[in-house]
């Protein structure tokens, strides 16, 4: 008898707790809401068939990049430009916000997640390049970034990539930007710091353990807009990183469909609206990308 009372109490408590967590809350960002398309057909796309039979779309994203793909630790909500693009594509495929499952996947796991089918598509600072195209497919680019530097606001010694000698430079373990710093010899090998996430690097920068954080300007602007009093982005971007939407390799039908969606969003105002609501808040403007269909 006592056990049953306890079980009922626990169940009631659990229900009350989950009910509390489920409300949307006041944290809505004012991001543009999407018109959900109806009766979408993508003939010959195994990925789309899978989405349809599941009734939900699973999107791979980043969770630690403010302004691009960021998961609020308290509300669990995802925000950022990449998220808006992901939602836009989902809406045009016929799936509203309530039918999206975001899955946070770090850079190193992206190809495998797409190959395994863990996610239907991936939107998260995913640079299109030839080598990656051997394993996955890309729609887009939906944004063009370039490698840049984040330093402390009061640092006047670092002005660009050629003033990094003798400075400690931080980026994510094995990432493209840090490999570029190594291969171009922008600083000495012993001054290169590779940590798990960009957030850790930014933390180290604020503490003064490292002198600069390097990666794509879009990511850095996100951090700079979070703490404009202590951090700034310096120098001209010194690489060209076209961000694409990662898709399973052989799904040409879905790739064409997503490209059509992106083109329509670029021509209409939806792309600009998504940018203005997220990255645009940092005050910087950007050129619209040109799709590269293949």
């Amino acid at each position, binding site marked *: 008898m006592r056990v049953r009372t306890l079980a009922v109490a626990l169940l009631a408590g659990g229900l009350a707790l989950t009910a509390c967590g489920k409300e949307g809350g006041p944290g809505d960002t004012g991001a543009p809401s999407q018109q959900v398309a109806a009766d979408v057909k993508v003939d010959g796309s195994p990925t789309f068939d899978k989405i349809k039979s599941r009734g939900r779309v699973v999107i791979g994203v980043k969770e630690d990049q403010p302004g691009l793909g960021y998961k609020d630790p308290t509300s669990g909500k995802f925000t950022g430009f990449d998220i808006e693009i992901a939602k836009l594509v989902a809406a045009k495929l016929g799936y509203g916000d309530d039918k999206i499952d975001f899955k946070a996947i770090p*850079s*190193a*796991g*992206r*190809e*495998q997640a797409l*190959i395994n089918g863990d996610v239907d598509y991936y939107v998260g600072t995913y640079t299109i*390049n*030839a*080598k*990656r195209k*051997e*394993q996955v497919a890309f729609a887009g680019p939906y944004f063009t970034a370039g490698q840049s530097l984040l330093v402390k606001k009061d640092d006047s010694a670092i002005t660009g990539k050629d003033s990094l000698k003798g400075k*400690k430079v931080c980026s*994510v*373990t*094995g*990432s*493209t930007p840090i*490999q570029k710093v190594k291969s171009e010899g922008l600083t*000495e*090998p*012993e*001054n*290169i*710091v*590779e*940590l*798990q996430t960009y957030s*850790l690097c930014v*933390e*180290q920068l604020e*503490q003064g*353990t*490292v002198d600069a954080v390097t990666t794509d300007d879009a990511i850095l602007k996100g951090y700079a807009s979070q703490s404009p009093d202590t951090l700034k982005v310096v120098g001209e971007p010194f690489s060209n990183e076209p961000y694409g939407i990662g898709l399973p390799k052989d799904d040409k039908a879905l790739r064409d469909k997503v490209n059509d969606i992106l083109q329509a969003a670029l021509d209409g105002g939806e792309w600009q609206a998504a940018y203005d609501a997220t990255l645009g808040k940092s005050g910087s403007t950007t050129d619209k990308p040109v799709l590269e269909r293949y």
Partner: protein
Amino acid sequence: MDVLLDNLDLYGPGFLNTVELFLISAVGSLVLGTILAMLRVAPVPVMRAMGATYVTLVRNTPLTLVFFFFALAFPLLEIVSADTFGGSAASYYFSAALMALTLYTSAFVCEVVRSGINTVPVGQAEASRALGLTFGQMLTSVVLPQATRAVVPPMVSTMIALLKNTTIAAGFSVFQAGSISANLSERGENQLIGLLWVAVFFIVLVIPMTLLQRSLEKRWSIAR
């Protein structure tokens, strides 16, 4: 095979650094662990309490947190300056990884050694004390040599665990076997195959340790 051959510049230095991390922290943790075990069986209550506190604290902390502390939080305490470790970022993070691995593994080594000490009959200690040996002499020349024989298999297991734990250093700016997959991903290589090669190399590293374990077991076995 291509993934391996095209990226030998990752695999070579990666595994060399892994072996280096492992060897230094293995020696360090064997020494420190044995000292801790001696503390835990010492006749002075304060020493026993010190040993027990250390083991309880460190053994219950996840290794990633230990790494986190030494790589990222320790510098803020400003107990020692960065120059102590050679000044550069690379040497600092390498030393931090060594400290984290050594301190963490010694807690486990300590308990292995202590369990070995427990297998030595009390009569041995009593007899050596009756002969007039001090506590130190009794431990080093009577109890520990016998204890060591009993703990070969668990000790080798602890060391194999240490070898694999070195991969956590990848997230803390130490390039080694654990960093290979992240680098491969950015190069656009197939990571599954890349990771299979990492696994193969780990097996290659573990086999000699297993062989050493067998030969030591045979050579040191005693009739009880």
